[in-house]
């Protein structure tokens, strides 16, 4: 408890407070604007945080991440276009409500559920993080290797693609990660005689290229949607407060689903919101009303994605394993600031960890205080034509990435990664496993080689403790499970 209080002292420091506010406002904007995701926004902002203190930098980047979950629901409800992927399910009931003239109620439900879900997720983080840390402090290289391998396999089994595609993308990401000086021998790898490559590929350029650029290419020629967003004002929001009693159980159910799924690698807020919605539908006596504008159908997924966005930080901060690509970038930001992620992080940098946790809650307070009274402003922002944003994204990406090492080399790297990312997108290969492989690959190699050095090349050392055996079993289960499921569904429906 004292740690949490000192965390609030860190988060309430004026500079941290300002950057937290800036982060959540930017995140909210990014969320309101369909087409730019939090991943692209965070990688664009990363170079701007280089001169900040690490705690301040992560506070701001995290604010962009969970702020986007708040803003995303506004576009979903008013425009029927999800601001981010995890708000897609909110359109099902949010937009019909808005069409019916109850936009204020739908928006208020989304904002209050987001706040409650986020708060419950933060409570889970406060309770469970120290437990995981105390368990994992005894980890040696073998256990680390096992945990990282689990993270890689989980990253490979992101939904929407078979395990084979995931493994292929992860290995390409790990190959990109192996560029640069080999830590053990000091020999250069894949440097092609270019000095810039000795430090490895910059995570900023890789993330911007893979997530930002393909998004622009795919959307720049899309016809502007003729739909006008539905108008709403703050008075409609305030008058809806007394009708919120009905959503309390939905919020708790949604937050439970989201809080549980958030830390699982490969799951994340999007899956959490879908599952929370289908759970919500199964708990009611008249499920056919869902999709026609029920506030429970807005409350549950919005509570779930915000809870998941917060609990996703648990494995990232306590074990150094990012479950989602956004967490991989946050991890990359920590490494850029010279902080090595892992179980020792909470012990070595308690101010960073607890300051971050406290800032989450302050950020959530900022968001709900900004969004309810200022809803008229956000609604107008939704109406800005999307064609204005593409040049802004390209300009910010190119100028920002130039600043990583003050050279045009990284702009060329963005171009190469962007082209590759677009081609992969066209082929239907998701970029998330590639980024997770890129971040975790060098760490996996380092711990494997360190473990083998300790044991003198004896591979049984890798499975010498109950902990590492358990983790390897989990990894194996994760690999086998989709294959089993595919086999059983195929035998169940032989006609398809």
């Amino acid at each position, binding site marked *: 408890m004292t740690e949490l209080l000192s965390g609030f002292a860190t988060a309430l420091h004026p500079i941290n407070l300002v950057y937290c506010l800036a982060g959540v406002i930017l995140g909210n904007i990014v969320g309101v604007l369909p087409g730019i995701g939090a991943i692209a926004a965070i990688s664009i902002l990363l*170079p*701007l945080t280089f*001169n900040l203190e690490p705690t301040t930098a992560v506070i701001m980047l995290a604010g962009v991440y969970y702020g986007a979950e708040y803003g995303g629901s506004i576009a979903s409800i008013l425009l029927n276009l999800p601001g981010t992927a995890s708000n897609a399910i909110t359109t099902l009931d949010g937009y019909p409500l808005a069409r019916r003239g109850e936009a204020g109620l739908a928006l208020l439900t989304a904002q209050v559920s987001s706040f409650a879900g986020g708060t419950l997720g933060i409570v889970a983080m406060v309770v469970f993080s120290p437990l995981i840390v105390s368990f994992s402090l005894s980890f040696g290289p073998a256990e680390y290797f096992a945990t990282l391998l689990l993270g890689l396999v989980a990253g490979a089994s992101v939904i929407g693609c078979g395990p*084979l*595609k995931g*493994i*292929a*993308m992860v*290995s*390409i990401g*790990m*190959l990109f990660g*192996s560029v640069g000086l*080999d830590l*053990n*021998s000091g*020999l250069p*790898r*894949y440097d092609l005689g270019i000095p810039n490559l000795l430090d490895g590929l910059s995570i900023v350029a890789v993330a911007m290229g893979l997530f930002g*650029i393909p998004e*622009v*290419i*795919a959307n*720049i*020629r899309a*016809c502007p949607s003729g739909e006008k967003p539905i108008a709403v004002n703050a008075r409609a929001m305030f008058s809806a407060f007394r009708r919120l009693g009905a959503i309390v159980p939905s919020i708790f159910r949604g937050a439970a689903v989201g809080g549980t799924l958030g830390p699982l690698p490969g799951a994340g807020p999007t899956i959490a919101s879908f599952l929370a919605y289908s759970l919500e539908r199964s708990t009611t006596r008249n499920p056919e009303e869902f999709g026609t504008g029920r506030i429970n159908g807005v409350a549950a997924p919005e509570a779930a994605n915000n809870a998941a966005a917060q609990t996703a930080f648990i494995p990232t901060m306590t074990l150094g394993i990012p479950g989602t690509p956004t967490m991989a970038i946050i991890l990359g930001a920590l490494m850029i600031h010279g902080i090595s992620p892992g179980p020792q992080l909470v012990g070595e940098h308690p101010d960073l960890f607890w300051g971050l946790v406290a800032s989450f809650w302050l950020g959530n307070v900022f968001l709900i205080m900004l969004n309810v009274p200022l809803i008229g402003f956000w609604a107008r922002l939704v109406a800005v034509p999307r064609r*204005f944003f*593409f*040049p*802004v994204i*390209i*300009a*910010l*990406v*190119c*100028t920002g990435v*130039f*600043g990583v090492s*003050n050279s*045009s080399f990284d*702009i*060329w790297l*963005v*171009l190469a990664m*962007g*082209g590759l990312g*677009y081609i*992969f997108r*066209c*082929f*239907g*290969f998701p970029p998330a496993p590639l980024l997770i492989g890129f971040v975790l*690959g060098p760490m996996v190699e380092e711990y*494997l*080689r360190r473990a*083998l*050095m300790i044991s*003198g*090349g*004896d591979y049984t050392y890798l499975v010498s403790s109950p902990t590492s055996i358990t983790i390897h079993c989990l990894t194996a289960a994760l690999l086998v499970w989709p294959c089993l499921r595919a086999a059983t569904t195929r035998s169940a429906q032989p006609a398809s």
Partner: protein
Amino acid sequence: MKTLRDAGGGLLIAAIGLLFLLGAREMPLGSLRNMGPGMFPTALSVVAIIAGLAIAALEVLRNAEAAMTFDLRALACVGGAIALYAVLMESAGLLATTVIAVFLLAAAPQRFRPMETLLVGVGLSVFTWAVFVKGLGMPLSFLPDVSL
């Protein structure tokens, strides 16, 4: 357009794996008990090649054809704008680079709006100059560097 979508991606992955495998030939492999710098990349390249070929083979066997959209004009406009930044920004300054890049991007959609594009370009260059050069102290100039 119907193409073998997964097969293309699988072959692309196998090709990248092959490039990295060729690049790893120079690096000392070491042994499995005492790995050299080349061991990990070589193993990963092999995994990528096998996985890529397996994806391609599975799709050909299943005969599953999926539609694929590939927008060459958008790719060329966006890619061209990024390349422009890489080539011009240091010598031509932010104003000229941004305006030209914004015009290139505006050539992608069907309807071209010259006045609006010019305003966006100028406004954007002032904004990036204020944030990155004034705010973060990046060594870039606003106007072309005439001393060259």
